[in-house]
């Protein structure tokens, strides 16, 4: 049912122009979708009024049978086809799976890419596919509630996710047909939701330092942020993308296994049962001092103190990461003004107490720690999509792990250091080793350890087409760029000849673009008309956006930045676009004209960028003068 919306003055320019933007928290245990309605963030519940969607997908032979609560019901009866905690596998390789050990009771196979897949009755599925099912479900929920196609989504990721894990998340969204406005770090999203910004600051120089402690089901993040008027600046971030509440469950399950004399190897069914008992025991011990268990005809008692002994080491690991981040940020615990708790696992009193002890502060958790990330993401999505033009909000995030390349002897050479503000670009020069050498290979890794084998392999690049020269005389410049999503891009150029070298990227654990396109086509093949309609609709939206955008830009800057013929040329291509937009039903034709307009307007865009730099600082000097 569509409700009549009445918005605050200035919040929404015109109701029909308002775009559908959502924030999605893709969690290890639960996922959520939120949007901004009448100026405040709300979680979009399912038809039964439930906010959360358990991150569980159940497969049967024909494919996905259900996602969420329904899927979770198959947990014990059909464990091998009921996939949960899949986020722990996202963007990971076979070697990682081995270290995660028996915590993931599935059967794996590997494809050529080195990416593990899970065997189900439906065949082997990749973690990216499983995640895309969860995203698709949430997007569907949002489209139903908002009454239309989504214009874009902000999807949150743990701050400590590396490039491969981020790329995998983005690929999952693409596969689910979602336009990603931004990948946003979870702790940063939480800071936004708390609105720890604008209102409380009177002038530019006032600032506050906060720590966001985020312990979820499978990941841990700590971020130290400096807030000033409208600016969220991440100073340092750290964590462990394979540590969370799940590990507490495993510790308790292990204790149960020993107490019950169940031996070293358990079957999948036993594992699931023990884990479920462990999980409910953990939750009960957050309320009561001890729990009595009746399991396999044995009576057991677990006290809170006894549980603490099982999990304290894990909590200690998170505190060590907090200390390291404070050191990276060059900040002492006593200069932190506020600590915010995020993630379901911070509900445990032991966790809250330990965090409070470390920072010497009573942590803040006035927003439900399960919902806060999605709400922050929704707020950011609303700004990015252009619904809230009055928002004066800026996020400056950092790269969580250093980027480097492999050098002689299996050592890493760092190119971009951890906690560098993104976007960031660095260039490096290489030369050839042999006479007439025309190719070279570069291995890009992410991590802060000395040895390549201790870091995460991101990609291997083959540079080809280097003109044959005497050894040492070719100059190959390799540029690394990390965008605002924390994603890496590499390009290379031979400087002395100006030849652009071709790069072949082989992602170490991911999908290539062709694979994604193929999977997208597969998923639509049984609904070809549907796909065509959707593609056309998408291009129409893009055309509208472009028309609106460029017309506004021309009105504002056309006279000052373009000469007569440039202006006319741009106008003509725009008119053609409008003509096609209204008359064609061929999405390819429309896409082609969008590209023409894009190309024609490139120079204009570049000039506008330069003009806005001047303008931004000019405005400032004026302010200064008035002071």
């Amino acid at each position: 049912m569509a409700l009549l919306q009445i918005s605050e003055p200035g919040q929404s320019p015109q109701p029909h122009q308002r775009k559908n933007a959502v924030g999605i928290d893709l969690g290890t245990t639960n996922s959520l979708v939120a949007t901004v309605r009448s100026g405040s963030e709300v979680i979009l519940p399912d038809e039964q009024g439930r906010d959360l969607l358990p991150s569980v997908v159940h497969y049967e032979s024909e494919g996905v049978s259900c996602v969420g609560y329904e899927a979770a019901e198959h947990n014990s009866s059909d464990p091998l086809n009921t996939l949960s905690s899949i986020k722990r596998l996202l963007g990971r390789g076979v070697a990682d799976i081995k270290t995660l050990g028996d915590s993931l009771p599935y059967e794996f196979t590997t494809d050529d890419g080195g990416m593990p897949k899970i065997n189900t009755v439906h065949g082997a599925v990749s973690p990216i596919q499983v995640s895309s099912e969860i995203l698709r479900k949430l997007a569907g929920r949002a489209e139903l509630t908002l009454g239309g196609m989504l214009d874009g989504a902000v999807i949150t990721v743990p701050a400590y996710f590396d490039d491969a894990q981020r790329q995998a998340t983005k690929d999952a969204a693409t596969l689910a047909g979602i336009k990603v406005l931004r990948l946003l770090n979870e702790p940063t999203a939480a800071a936004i939701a708390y609105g720890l910004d604008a209102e409380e600051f009177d002038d530019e120089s006032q600032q506050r330092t906060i720590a966001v402690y985020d312990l979820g089901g499978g990941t841990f993040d700590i971020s130290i942020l400096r807030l000033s008027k409208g600016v969220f600046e991440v100073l340092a971030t750290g964590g462990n993308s394979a540590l969370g509440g799940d590990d507490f469950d495993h510790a308790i399950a292990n204790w149960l296994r020993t107490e019950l004399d169940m031996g070293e190897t358990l079957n999948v069914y036993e594992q699931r049962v023990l884990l479920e008992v462990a999980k409910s025991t953990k939750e009960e011990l957050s309320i009561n001092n001890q729990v009595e268990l009746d399991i396999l005809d044995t009576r057991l008692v677990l006290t809170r103190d006894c549980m603490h002994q099982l999990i304290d080491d894990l909590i200690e690991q998170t505190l060590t990461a907090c200390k390291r981040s404070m050191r990276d940020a060059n900040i002492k615990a006593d200069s932190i003004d506020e600590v915010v708790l995020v993630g379901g696992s911070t509900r445990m009193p032991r966790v809250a107490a330990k965090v409070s002890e470390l920072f010497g502060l009573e942590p803040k958790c006035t927003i439900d720690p399960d919902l806060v990330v999605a709400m922050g993401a929704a707020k950011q999505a609303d700004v990015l999509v252009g619904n809230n033009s009055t928002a004066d909000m800026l996020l400056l995030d950092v790269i969580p792990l250093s980027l480097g390349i492999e050098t002689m002897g299996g050592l890493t050479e760092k190119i971009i250091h951890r906690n560098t503000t993104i976007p960031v670009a660095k260039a490096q020069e290489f030369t050839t080793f042999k006479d007439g050498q025309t190719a070279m290979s570069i291995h890009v890794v992410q991590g802060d350890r000395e040895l390549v084998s201790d870091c995460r392999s991101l990609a291997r690049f083959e540079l080809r087409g280097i003109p044959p020269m005497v050894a040492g005389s070719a100059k190959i410049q390799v540029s690394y760029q990390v965008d605002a999503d924390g994603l890496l891009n590499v390009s290379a150029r031979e400087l002395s000849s100006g030849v652009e070298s071709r790069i072949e990227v082989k992602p170490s654990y991911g999908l290539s673009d062709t694979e994604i396109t193929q999977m997208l086509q597969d998923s639509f093949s049984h609904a070809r008309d549907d796909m065509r309609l959707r593609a056309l609709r998408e291009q129409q939206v893009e055309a509208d956006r472009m028309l609106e955008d460029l017309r506004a830009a021309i009105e504002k800057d056309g006279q000052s930045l373009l000469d007569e013929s440039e202006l006319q040329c741009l106008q003509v291509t725009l008119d053609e676009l409008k003509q096609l937009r209204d008359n064609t039903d061929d999405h390819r034709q429309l896409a082609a004209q969008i590209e023409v307009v894009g190309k024609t307007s490139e120079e204009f865009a570049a000039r506008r960028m330069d003009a806005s730099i001047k303008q931004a600082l000019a405005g400032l000097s004026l302010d200064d003068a008035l002071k």
Partner: protein
Amino acid sequence: MNNSKNFFEIFSLAVAWEVDFEQLDIKFRTLQKALHPDRFANKNDFEKRLAVQTAATINQAYETIKNPLSRAQYLLQLKDLDASQEKHITSDGQFLMDQMLLREALAEIRGSENAKEALVSLSIEAQQTAAKIQSEFASQYQQKAYNEAFESLAKMQFAIKFIDDINELEAELEDL
């Protein structure tokens, strides 16, 4: 963005060793507010790429000016002098001797009983040394004594590397 601008010009700052950091911070945030890729999330791919490049340049300019070592290097580079690390070494024997003694002191701290206290006092000494070298650089640069400035730059590299090593040991001790 217009590539002919140097990093100081990006922030409308004078090319100089002395920097008003409060002004730098304000200008940095103002520029990023106007040009960050988040302002272009809804634009076409070309504009998005342009915004990423521009924001990356602003970040790099900000970091370069903020950090004393890279600022010193960059100032000399702007004089068309090659300030890359390999080419400049210091021939100041006394300085090198002092550095060796400091390094020995650091090595001895590891495993000693009152390591933390010793580290704190060593850290203070190292900070003072670094500050002294920086002020020497500042006056040499001012007087256009670039050869001497290069020598100070080399010393600065030593001193800052030493501070990094102290911090690393401090981190190690804390994690134990």
